[in-house]
């Protein structure tokens, strides 16, 4: 295991940011810390980097007790949401910074910086100032700067949070490919479940200072540990007392027989979002959302007012959870 967090707690005044958190982060993998804002994921990342100190608990990086090490002695690379570019230094000097601090020979610095600028496709911008770069370019520069010192672990704090949707999507694909090339242990914080599901090898879901679940994207999506993880990872609808994904609900036209798994109701609303059709069915005082592909929808010829019956697809029962009443009231 590359990073070992044991019983870490952190408070800011009365606010509990982390409550006795323990987690192991595997070597060479891309791990996402996923959760809502204020849930403690950034604090955990900053504690790993040494930018924040834990009130109690232990942090180990590659077998070395780092709990009381200052950030400059941890050999971690950190990428900030707002890039933290050194505004008075050129792109080249930004990337060279960590190597200059370590007093590496000039020739080595030159070749390493050039190699990294090529890696992040910024060779032709070497002499520019950060203010002359776009947000995406600045973030790639920040990444090259963090990688230059060959860190034991690479930590990214909402790295694409300040970018617009399109650049963000490009950069996350690029990060995934980059990681497949460089293989440095990487931890990134995000509140975007799609980003985590798409990029990460492993996801740690953090909420209200506690870890809700750890697992691969598939495990989390298919077998959520609880109501919170289920809701946070994607759209949900409620059928009876079960939470289920709208695309895991089966719909059939006509009255049902006395099958306890089925609910009979009427279509009350149809919304088309591109290739996806959302059908709302009202029955037993409950509104159930079902998503269909366009072809499925056309084949069934559904209209508002059509009587239908809905049930949870039998093969996905593991992907549902019982509704947590407290959670329901809170939302």
């Amino acid at each position: 295991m590359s990073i070992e967090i044991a019983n870490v707690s952190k408070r800011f005044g009365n606010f509990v940011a982390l409550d006795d958190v323990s987690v192991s982060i595997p070597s060479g993998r891309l791990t996402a810390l996923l959760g809502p804002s204020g849930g403690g994921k950034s604090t955990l990342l900053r504690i790993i980097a040494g930018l924040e100190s834990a009130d109690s608990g232990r942090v180990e990086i590659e077998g070395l007790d780092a709990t009381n090490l200052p950030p400059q002695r941890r050999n971690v690379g950190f990428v900030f949401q707002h890039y933290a570019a050194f505004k008075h230094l050129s792109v080249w000097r930004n990337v060279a910074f960590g190597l200059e601090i370590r007093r590496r020979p000039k020739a080595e610095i030159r070749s390493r910086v050039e190699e990294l600028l090529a890696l992040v496709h910024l060779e032709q911008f070497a002499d520019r100032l950060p203010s002359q770069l776009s947000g995406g370019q600045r973030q790639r520069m920040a990444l090259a700067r963090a990688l230059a010192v060959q860190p034991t672990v690479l930590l990214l704090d909402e790295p694409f949070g300040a970018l617009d949707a399109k650049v963000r999507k490009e950069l996350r694909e690029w990060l995934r490919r980059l990681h497949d090339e460089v293989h440095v242990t990487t931890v990134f914080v995000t509140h975007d479940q799609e980003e985590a599901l798409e990029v990460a090898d492993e996801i740690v879901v953090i909420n209200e200072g506690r870890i809700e679940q750890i697992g691969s994207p598939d495990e989390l999506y298919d077998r959520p540990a609880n109501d919170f993880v289920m809701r946070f990872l994607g759209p949900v609808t409620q059928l009876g007392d079960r939470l289920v994904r709208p695309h895991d609900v089966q719909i059939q036209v006509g009255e049902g027989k006395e099958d306890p798994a089925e609910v009979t109701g009427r279509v009350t609303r149809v919304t088309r979002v591109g290739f996806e059709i959302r059908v709302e069915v009202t029955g037993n005082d409950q509104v159930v959302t079902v998503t269909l592909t366009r072809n499925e929808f056309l084949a069934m010829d559904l209209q508002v007012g059509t009587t239908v019956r809905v049930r949870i697809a039998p093969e996905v029962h593991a992907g549902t959870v019982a509704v947590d009443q407290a959670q329901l009231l809170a939302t």
Partner: protein
Amino acid sequence: MTSATLAPDRPAPRRTVRSGRRLTRASGLGLGVAMLWFSLLVLIPLTAVVVTASDGGWAEFWATVTNQQTLAAIELTVGTAFLVTLINIVMGTTIAWVLVRDDRFVGRRVLEVLIDIPFALPTIVAGLVLLSLYGPDSPLGVNIANTRVAVFFAFLFVTLPFVVRTVQPVLAELDREAEEAAASLGASRFTVFRRIILPSLTPAIAAGAALSFARGVSEYGSLVLLSGNLPMRTEVTSVRILSSIENDNLEGAAAVAAVLLVISFVVIVAVDVIQRRVVRRG
């Protein structure tokens, strides 16, 4: 000046608000050295003023402060500073308005420099400067030297930058969409100013006014050549303190100085409270 601290948070770099770090050993040592220096330079000397003022007991203090000549000086100083502050509130806001909003006015850059001159000019030179236009050799044919009007002009000159420089950045950061919304709802230009703009500027105007008042009350240098320092007529409080010092009456000087310090203190607290309110609204 206070501009930057008064300006509401710029929207650009949104950061998570994090409290400062706890002191490390090195920064703690730095703070200690800084506090020692600040105490030796400012805190202990100012304490000495208050202690010396109270040395003779309350009765003596009161007698010194209510001495007819001293009282006349305090009245003149505070009264003139108050009047000048009122003028600064109106003129300072107007000047700030022209500097920020009248972007087609070519003279703006020159005006910017003119506004800072009273701040950078040595006060004794400020007196000489005013004397050259309003003194005995005035090309305008007026002579205000050695009158109360001279005190008024000197205060007006030295306090010029304060309201302008506190209002200007706030005005520049003001959300114009709110004004446009008000205009689209049928508000006249005057109504927009009174109902939308003025309320946002009030804390900055108040802070600038407080600074301008404090500066006026403590003014000395510009009056030396200009006002003649005539007892009961044009003598201001600082001059009164200086003559006590020159007569080797340090206790008397300290008593009057303590009055000025109290005024400064009230003003500083006022500015602090006002700025805090601005920050909260920002």
